[in-house]
C-alpha cells in the first residue's frame, strides 16, 4: 500500500544555512503522526515544504504516490492535502459561516463558478452547517470571524482545514497559546474531526502529542533522529538527550 505522504532525503537551505538536512519519512494512510522537536529544529519549515509554501532545495515529497515538486499550494490542496497555520490564518472580515462555506467551494466542484448563487446551494449550506456543528460554532454563525475568542478562532481554523474533505490533514501547533481547558477541548475536537483521515501535526505540548499520535518523529537540527510509537520514542535515549537537553537549556 502506498503511504499517504512520503519524504525522501528532503533538504532546504536558506542562503548558506541548511535548515532541513535530509529528512526521510513515510506516513501511512489513516496514521496520526506527530513531529516534535526543540525550538528551531525546522518543524515549521518542514511543514511549509510539504505544503508548497517554500520550494525544496533537494529530495522529494510524494503524496499518494505523486511527486509534489514544483506544485503550487492550491494544486497540492486539490490533491487532498489540507493544512492549518501556527498563527491563526482565517478570513477575519467574513462571518464564521462564510469562512467555512468558502473552504467547501472547491471540493464541492464549484471551482471558478460565476453563474450559480452560493446562497441557493443546499449542499453548501448544509455542509457548512454540519462543519459548524462539529466545531461547536453554530451559535457564532453570523459573527465576523475576527471577533471570536482565540480558542474559537483556532477551532474555526481547524474547521476550515478539514472542510475541504482532504484526507491528509496537517496541523501546525493547533494548541499553541491555549490554556489547559482550551487545549483539552481542541484535542477532543481534533480527534473527532479527523477520524479516518491521515493526520500530521507539529506540536510542542507533549500531553497533546502523546494523547493524539500513533506515531511520533523527532526532528532535531533538520534531521529526524527517531520515529516510532509514543512509548518507543519516549524510551529512546537519543530523544531524551536531544529533546530534554534542549528543553533544560531553555529554562
Amino acid at each position: 500500500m502506498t503511504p499517504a505522504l512520503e519524504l525522501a532525503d528532503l533538504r532546504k537551505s536558506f542562503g548558506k544555512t541548511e535548515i532541513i538536512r535530509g529528512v526521510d519519512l513515510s506516513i501511512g494512510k489513516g496514521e496520526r503522526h506527530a513531529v516534535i522537536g526543540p525550538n528551531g529544529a525546522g518543524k515549521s519549515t518542514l511543514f511549509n515544504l510539504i505544503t508548497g509554501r517554500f520550494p525544496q532545495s533537494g529530495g522529494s515529497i510524494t503524496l499518494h504516490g505523486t511527486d509534489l515538486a514544483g506544485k503550487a499550494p492550491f494544486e497540492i490542496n486539490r490533491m487532498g492535502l489540507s493544512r492549518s497555520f501556527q498563527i491563526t490564518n482565517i478570513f477575519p472580515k467574513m462571518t464564521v459561516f462564510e469562512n467555512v462555506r468558502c473552504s467547501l467551494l472547491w471540493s464541492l466542484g464549484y471551482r471558478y463558478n460565476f453563474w450559480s448563487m452560493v446562497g441557493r446551494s443546499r449542499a453548501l449550506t448544509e455542509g457548512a452547517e454540519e462543519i459548524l456543528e462539529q466545531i461547536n460554532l453554530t451559535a457564532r454563525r453570523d459573527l465576523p470571524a475576527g471577533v471570536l475568542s482565540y480558542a474559537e478562532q483556532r477551532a474555526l481554523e481547524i474547521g476550515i482545514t478539514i472542510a475541504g474533505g482532504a484526507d491528509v490533514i496537517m496541523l501546525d501547533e493547533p494548541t499553541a497559546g491555549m490554556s489547559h481547558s482550551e487545549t483539552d477541548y481542541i484535542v477532543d475536537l481534533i480527534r473527532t474531526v479527523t477520524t479516518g483521515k491521515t493526520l500530521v501535526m507539529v506540536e510542542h505540548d507533549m500531553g497533546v502529542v502523546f494523547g493524539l499520535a500513533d506515531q511520533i518523529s523527532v526532528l532535531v537540527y533538520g534531521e529526524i533522529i527517531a520515529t516510532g510509537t509514543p512509548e518507543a520514542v519516549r524510551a529512546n535515549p537519543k530523544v531524551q538527550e536531544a529533546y530534554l537537553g534542549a528543553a533544560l537549556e531553555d529554562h
Partner: protein
Amino acid sequence: MTDQSTTNASKSAQGVRAGSMMLALTPWCIAAVALLVLPFIFTANSAITIMNQMAITIIFALAYNMLLGQGGMLSFGHAVYAGVGGFACMHIINNDAFFSQLPLPLLPIFGGLFGMGLAMIVGSFSTRKAGTVFAMISLGVGELIAACSVIIVAFFGGEEGISGDRTYGLPFLGVEFLQQIEVYYLIAVWLMLSAALMYLYSRTPLGRMANAVRDNPERAEFLGYSARWVRFYSFVASGFFAGIAGALFAINYEILTEENLNTTQSGIILLVTFLGGVGFFFGPILGAIVFTLVQTVLSLQTELWGFYLGIVFVVTVMFFPGGLAGLIMMHVPAMRLGKLSVLALPYLRTLGAGFVGCLGAAALIEMVFHVRHASVGDHEMTVYWTTFDSHTVLPWVLAIAATVVGFWIARATAPSLAAAWSEANTADGGQP
C-alpha cells in the same frame, strides 16, 4: 432576475421566507421606481444629461469596486477599459453596414466584450501579484494606452477623438433615440441590469472567493483556489462592466476622446468609489451620485470646487475610511436598537455648528482667493448669493466669526455627542 436576487440576498437558502424576500427586494424596487419617475420631476434636458452621466458613473464605479472593494486590487488605470469599450462602440456606430442592422440597446454588450478582451490581455500578467505591483502595472499600462491615444490615430482619433451618430442604428420598437429622454431610459435599463448582475456576481462562488483572496490570499491558496486566477477573473469581470459604462458613454455623448482614457479619469473613478465607500455594495452608487452633482453643479458655483473636493477626499481617507456608505452603516446598530432618535439632538447641535463653521471657512477661502486673484480693482464678489465688497472689514469679521464660533461650539459639544453615541449603541439592558 428579480426572483434570483431575492433568494441570493437572503442569507440562508433554507430560510427563504416571504418577509426576507420583500426586504431584499425593496431597495431594488425603490431604485427602479426612482429611475422611472425621476425624468418626470426633472424635465429639463440638462437635468437628464446629468442623470445620464450619473448612471454611467455608477456603473463604472461599481465595476471599479469589484476590483478595489471586493478584490482588494488598487488600479490607477481603470479608465482604459471603459474607454476602449467606448471607442470600440464608436467604431461600430460608424460602421454603417453593421450598425444599421443592430438595435442600439444591444450596443453595450459589445462595449463590455471589448473591455473584457483588453482586461484579459492586461490581466494575464498584471494579476499575478496584488498590492503595490498590481497598482504600478495598472498605472504603467494606463499611461501607455492613454499616450497611444494621440499616436494611434486610426483607432483613437487623436486628441479630437472619434464621434458618430447613434440614431443610424436599427430602430428599436420604433424608437430611434433622437431625444435625450429615450437615451435616459436605455441607460436606466442598463444601469439596473448591470447593478443587479454585479450584485449577483458578488454572491457566486467566484465572488465570495474574491473577498477571501482580498483578505487572505495565502489561506485561499490552501483552500484549493489559485489567488492569481481569482484575481484574474475579478479583473476580467470588472473590465466587462467598465466596457459597458464606456459604451453607454458613447451612446450618450456620441463622442469619445483621450479624456476617456487618461489617468485623470482613472483617478476620478478611484475618488468616486472611495468617497462612496468601498466596503458596501451601494457605496460607489452614493459616491457617483454625489460626485456628479459636485462636479456639474458645485463647479458652476465656485472655481475652487477641486480644492474642496481634495480636502473632503483627504479627510475621508484619514477619518472615515468606510466612506459615505460606512458613515451611514455605522448607524445600523443604533437603528436596530430603535435608539436613533437619541442622536438627533446632539447631531443637530454638533454637526449643525460644524456645518456653520465649514460654511464660514469656505467663505474665508473664497474671499482670500478673490482678494488674491481677482483683477485689481475688482472688489465685488458673491458668496452664498450675497454680493459684497471683499475689501471691507465686515464680511471678513462675519466669516471669521462664523468659522470660529461654529467650530468652537462643535468642539465643545463633541463630548456630549460621543456620550449620546455610546448611549444609542447600548441596548437598554445596559450591556453593550
